[in-house]
């Protein structure tokens, strides 16, 4: 077998945003096409930062986009930063694929990043997470409220971006689902006044969010978890992350 290598797109990394919170290391690196050839259907299939443990995304691939010459997308990941020393240089490696469904090729982009001093995030994020499990083309989601006990932040809404045909097949009691069956799925607690019994309290979790799709393959897409403050009866903090959803067709 002979693989013809020229001409090909030239995907390179650029200086991105790096934040070290002391517990987590946020990396956001632009991926640019510095070549003369178009890079269609760019997916990131893996991200490593030296030997540091990755927190998110838990699953690959992550779709970046169609990168024409001169265009760029962004690869994002979170790593555990416990034990990292400010000033330390670590090699960030982004692996991925591009091309049509019948002719996909690989790419690898490397860039050394310097561990910055510990700093707080520009915005306070909700301490919450979502866990996904896939079984026979059915995606089940469980929400976890990781806020400390006594926190007024209660989970009240979940929104997931999807890129494949889906139908909602599961909604927890006290919640309602909304979807256009192709680009998003949202769930919202239906409570209208305090004490909002369907909200997810700190230290607890709620499962039963379920979608189905004709495809059995997954990719990671963005999701947003919203909280409602029970002390002020107002909108609370937000958490964004990537979660497994049905994989798009290319």
């Amino acid at each position, binding site marked *: *077998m*002979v*693989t*013809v*290598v*020229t001409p*090909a*797109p*030239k*995907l*390179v*990394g*650029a*200086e991105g945003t790096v934040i070290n919170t002391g517990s987590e290391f946020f990396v956001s690196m632009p991926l640019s096409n*510095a*070549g003369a050839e178009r890079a269609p259907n760019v997916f990131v*299939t893996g991200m490593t930062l030296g030997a540091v443990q990755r927190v998110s995304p838990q699953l690959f691939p992550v779709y970046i986009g169609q990168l024409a010459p001169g265009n760029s997308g962004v690869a994002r990941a979170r790593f555990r930063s416990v034990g990292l020393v400010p000033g330390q*240089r670590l*090699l960030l*490696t982004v*692996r991925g*694929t591009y091309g049509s469904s019948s002719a*996909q*090729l*690989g*790419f*690898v*982009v*490397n*860039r*050394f990043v310097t561990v910055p001093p510990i700093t707080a995030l520009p915005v306070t994020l909700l301490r919450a997470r979502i866990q996904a499990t896939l079984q026979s083309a059915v995606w089940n989601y469980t929400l976890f409220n990781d806020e400390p006990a006594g926190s007024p932040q209660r989970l009240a809404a979940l929104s997931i971006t999807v890129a494949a045909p889906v139908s909602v097949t599961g909604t927890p009691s006290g919640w309602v689902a909304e979807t256009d069956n192709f680009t998003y799925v949202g769930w919202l607690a239906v409570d209208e006044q305090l004490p909002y019994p369907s909200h997810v309290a700190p230290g607890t979790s709620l499962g039963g969010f379920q979608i189905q799709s004709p495809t059995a393959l997954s990719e990671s897409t963005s999701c947003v978890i919203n909280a409602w403050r029970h002390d002020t009866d107002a909108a609370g903090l937000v958490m964004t992350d990537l979660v497994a959803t049905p994989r798009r067709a290319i």
Partner: protein
Amino acid sequence: MSLTFRACFVQLFLALTAGISLLPVQAAVITLDVNSLSAPVVAGDTATFSGTITNRSGVTLESTDLFLSFSAFDFDALTPTQVLGSSLFSLLNFTFIANIDLFTVEVAAGTLAGTYGLQVFLSDVNGNVSDATDLRLVVTNGVQPVPEPSTVATVGLALALLILSRRRPSCRRMPQQSFETRL
């Protein structure tokens, strides 16, 4: 064609070619020269590539200011990994470093024997990107490709014809025994 006209034509041609040769050619300010553009690798093994990096970027570059990118390869078969930067060095402007370990390419076990392409290029913290270099990995002693049934049939037929064609002349060459007795 008169001599004067011919002389003018030659002068014009020379002027044009000189002008073309004087056109500015934008050279890459960082260059990557891989020592070996083709490497034999056994499936399941890893090949190491070294080479020369030249810095004409105008500033000193540290080894961790340099990044390798790979493109256009069979990701099921090849896993390229940057080694550059694991040993520290400084590269002053208008200098080069030779025979430095650049990267490794792991060939997955079970990869079919054949030639696999890979493109590599160098970039730096200042956004400079080198020209791409095409590499070939010749995977040997891997799993041999199973011939298609049509191929097997064709080869079988050819062998049968070959055997037949060899048998016929050999019959004609049988030595003739003589039972004549000289009197």
